[in-house]
């Protein structure tokens, strides 16, 4: 998959201090498992997103390691506590130099 594939994050723009916010992250990626063959019998090399990290004002709050068992166009829904206003950064790192970064701002009152 090309490095220009899209990634998208859904985060509430506002939240009450101390409340649990739900974050949905999705990437457009084939997640080629490395176990499939072409019709001519050639093994298709693995090409997956391996690591997803979420940092909240530069503090890591969530991380996930993906393996070939994650489906195409990986989706992950997780939660975090709204502690302060600031920026959330989401980073996807994968095979073949794949890297994508998303940022979202949150206002905590």
């Amino acid at each position: 998959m090309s490095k220009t594939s899209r990634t998208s994050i859904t985060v509430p723009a506002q939240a009450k201090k101390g409340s649990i916010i739900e974050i949905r992250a999705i990437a457009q990626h084939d997640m080629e498992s490395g176990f499939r063959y072409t019709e001519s019998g050639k093994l298709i090399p693995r090409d997956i997103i391996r690591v997803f990290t979420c940092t909240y004002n530069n503090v890591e709050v969530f991380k996930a390691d993906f393996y070939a068992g994650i489906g195409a166009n990986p989706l992950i829904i997780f939660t975090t506590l709204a502690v302060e206003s600031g920026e959330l950064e989401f980073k996807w790192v994968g095979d073949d130099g794949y890297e994508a970064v998303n940022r979202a701002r949150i206002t905590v009152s």
Partner: protein
Amino acid sequence: MRMKFNIPFTIKRRQWLKRIQDLGCIAVGVWFSPGTVLAKPEDAHAAIKAITGGAAIKEGRVKLIIPPLVENGNLVVLKVSVESPMTVNNYVKAIHIVAEGNPVPNIFTAYLTSRSGKASLTTRVRLADSQLVWAIAQMNDGSFWQGSAETLVTLSACTEMV
């Protein structure tokens, strides 16, 4: 008249025989190929051992939800939640998902913190076969808890041709 009827009949019969032969080839192919690719439950147990480092795993606290019957193993919605207060002193450190019938037993590992609020995740996974899937939660005190779910997969992922 009889000849005219006979000729299409024989062709049809021949085609059918050919088709049956083809099906046979596919059946033999299906029989042999997954065995070489799919992991065995022992691999899954080895993967679990690598996660826990040989520590005992207790049953409970972990709830894993996957549909009991899956039509297409390529995209299966998987939900996992762990009973935990998620405070600074008592939280879930990591959740590991392991499947016994996938080529790679590990599906994903999520690392949580006390700032996660609750230990609940949703993602979409691939399942190569009808199998048992485990969710193992690692607590901050070093204990391990597990939950599992069994599913029937009609169309498997991973092994199909492109």
